[in-house]
């Protein structure tokens, strides 16, 4: 089984209603969460939050694992799923410095407040969309770039990738996704566990040096030259933090049910047994016979 990935030329048009039963996010109905639903008192208090456009990567995951399920294959056995039964995507909220000077460092920010401490963290990936070298690319530069990811505060190297400065980002040269393993950034600290009442930001820093390995005093490369500039990016091209968790709870819907305040549904009593006494007598007589 292959890992579900986003092709470089992945279609970014809105979902169609007929697309495997998925909901169209362009139908004018703003999405909301179960928690939001419980908090609302009525239609007058309803304020539509910004629309969520599902990332193509998540749609690809869903399609791949759904097909596997229909074939009787447990998707958690896939290498790409890391044995997780929950995969949460967080869209980057960081912005690049708009000044024309070289972009030496980037800070990627993710609000991980909604991660539950009841779930076991089994993996995390930073997915960056690398655009094809364009006007920003310095034609004079050749050789390799060593791109590194580390937590903003510690500077400890989490993962790195090496690629050619003018290497096409994909076969179609339109761009491609680069994946970094950032599990270590979440594992030791797990900030959302410490202060659950406050929004928790995960900050990851990206930088690049020439060559294949980190060397002291080596100048940092301009990340725009590497196709990592974040100016005017479409939603589908924004960086993604993908967190893989394994829920220990058996009844996964109970939390959602509580949040939706659906307990009043229990007021509906089950219908009475309609079997007549006479029928019972006949049945028991027949059984004895």
């Amino acid at each position, binding site marked *: 089984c292959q890992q579900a990935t986003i092709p470089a030329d992945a279609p970014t048009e809105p979902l169609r209603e007929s697309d495997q*039963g998925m909901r169209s996010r362009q139908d004018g109905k703003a999405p909301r969460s*179960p928690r939001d639903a419980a908090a609302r008192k009525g239609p007058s208090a309803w304020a539509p939050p910004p629309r969520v456009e599902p990332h193509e990567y998540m*749609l690809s995951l869903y399609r791949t694992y759904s097909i596997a399920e229909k074939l009787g294959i447990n*998707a958690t056995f896939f290498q790409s799923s890391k044995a997780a039964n929950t995969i949460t995507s*967080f*869209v980057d909220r960081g912005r690049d410095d708009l000044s024309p000077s070289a972009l030496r460092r980037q800070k990627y920010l993710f609000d991980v407040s909604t991660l539950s401490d009841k779930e076991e963290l089994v993996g995390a990936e930073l997915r960056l969309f690398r655009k094809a070298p364009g006007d920003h690319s310095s034609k004079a530069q050749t050789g390799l770039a060593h791109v590194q990811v580390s937590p903003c505060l510690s500077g400890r190297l989490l993962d790195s990738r090496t690629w050619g400065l003018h290497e096409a980002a994909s076969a179609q040269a339109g761009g491609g996704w680069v994946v970094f393993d950032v599990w270590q950034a979440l594992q030791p600290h797990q900030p959302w566990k410490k202060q659950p009442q406050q929004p928790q930001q995960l900050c990851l820093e990206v930088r690049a040096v020439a060559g294949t390995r980190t060397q002291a005093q080596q100048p940092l490369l301009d990340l725009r030259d590497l196709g990592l500039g974040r100016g005017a990016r479409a939603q589908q091209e924004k960086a993604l933090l993908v967190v893989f968790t394994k829920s220990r709870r058996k009844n996964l819907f109970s939390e959602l049910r509580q949040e939706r305040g659906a307990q009043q549904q229990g007021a509906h009593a089950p219908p009475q047994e309609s079997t007549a006494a006479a029928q019972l007598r006949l049945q*028991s007589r027949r059984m004895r016979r």
Partner: protein
Amino acid sequence: TAYHNRHGKRHGKKARLRCSKKALHVNFKELGWDDWIIAPLEYEAYHCEGVCDFPLRSHLEPTNHAIIQTLMNSMDPGSTPPSCCVPTKLTPISILYTDAGNNVVYKQYEDMVVESCGCR
């Protein structure tokens, strides 16, 4: 109640159905859950329906307890109810939804689809 003639064939009133798997089409839109569930918007969950009366068929995989309860019920229906027709095997489905932070989440929910029914 099934009425059988001496050849064991049904006639007369409509027969009570034995425990088996029946259709249960779930539409999240009708449930009002389409505001947070992205996909699927509908799926076939199935449900178990029918009676677990004596003699229990082997394909219903009755537990020993269900066999005894069914026997007790057949001897004296007033003393013990029949055993229950319930799902004996369930499978998961994948759901894509938005969480409280408007993040898109893929989750595999266990026990969402009935694969088989039996008497318990």
